[in-house]
């Protein structure tokens, strides 16, 4: 199997945000600014890399009927590890995203990739798949964050270039997330053809 293809699939053909449409809850909730989207994407990617490798390693000793609970235990453990590490060493990210980190446990991308890829492939291929899907998710979230931050707060990565009076508050709020996501999905799918 070609590893470069796996990465390319994760970013373009199977992009979790724009094509698979998995993990919509954190996608919509955390992308109020570009930086929040980027940090959430990277956090999810870290968990995805670890769980993909571990699950791929234990796939043969896991009886089929209990595979989902075993996967969930592994995922929950890694998310909790990440949460403790962020709380201890990256307090700023903890302040911005604290609420959403534990929710990575129920992010369908992680369990989805465990079921669809890691449980059927070698650990190395699963690691590469984690990189591809993780980058795809991070890119999607950052793109969404950039659009919402520019329209809603007149800034990009915290750098303000449009004065307060011309901001469209709607784009920071929940409806703006749905509208932006809808348009981005349409544009990305048009460009792909």
């Amino acid at each position, binding site marked *: 199997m070609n590893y470069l293809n796996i990465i390319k699939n994760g970013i373009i053909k199977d992009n979790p945000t724009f094509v698979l449409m998995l993990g919509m809850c954190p996608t919509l*909730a*955390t992308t*109020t*600014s570009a930086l*929040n989207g980027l940090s959430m994407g990277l956090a999810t990617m870290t968990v995805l890399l670890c769980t993909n490798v571990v699950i791929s390693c*234990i*796939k*043969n*000793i*896991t*009886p*089929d*009927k*209990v595979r989902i*609970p*075993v996967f969930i*235990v*592994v995922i*929950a*453990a890694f998310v*909790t*590890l990440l949460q*403790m*590490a962020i*709380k*201890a*060493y990256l*307090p700023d990210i903890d*302040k*911005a*995203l*604290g*609420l*959403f980190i534990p929710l990575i446990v129920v992010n369908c991308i992680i369990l989805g990739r465990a079921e669809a890829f890691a449980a059927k492939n070698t650990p190395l291929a699963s690691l590469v798949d984690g990189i591809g899907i993780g980058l795809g998710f991070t890119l999607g979230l950052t793109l969404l964050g950039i659009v919402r931050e520019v329209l*809603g*707060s007149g800034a990009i990565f915290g750098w303000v270039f449009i004065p307060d009076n011309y901001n469209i*508050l709607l784009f*920071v*709020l929940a409806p703006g997330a749905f509208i932006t996501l809808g348009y981005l999905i349409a544009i990305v799918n048009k460009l792909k053809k």
Partner: protein
Amino acid sequence: MKKLESTLLNMVLVLTSVTVLMGFILAYMNHLTINPIALQKEKTLNEGIKSVMASSDIEVTSVDTLRLHCAKGKEQAFVIYHNKKGAAIESTTLGFGGPLKVLVGFDVQGAILGYTILEHQETPGLGAKADQWFQEGQNGCIVGLNPSDSLYVKKDGGQVDAITASTITSRAFLLAVNNAYQAYISNRKEDKQ
């Protein structure tokens, strides 16, 4: 290697061992991060006290813990850090996403010197803006006000601008400030007696 059969024994063994193993890893990580997390909290608190007293060298002379019953009959704890300019008071209310812990600095007359948010679970980009919104020179400035008549948002007939689209967070924040003031006043009365 052949996949393990889904017999009862296999399932129980695998699920139990995975859970126990992950439990041990988590316990070890907790042991590693417990000190850094406590240090971070202490650092945030010390810097918070300095910033809310609007003074870079402030020494806490004594610490009081005060328990008051709020309107609903629930007991609330306030931590009061006395110093030469007045006192910094830690007060907790229920925000939009969970507990909202605020540190407010009062001078001897009871006017607000500054505030900082110690812990919150508000929505990023909306309620989470409370850490800036009520500061000096911002839209909802409360610095310099004296909450002897409780502070309210304009929607409730008060004098403070609420955070756009985050009235619940704003109300919770002002309640925390008002409660802190009450705690400060009743603590001083106790001292005089």
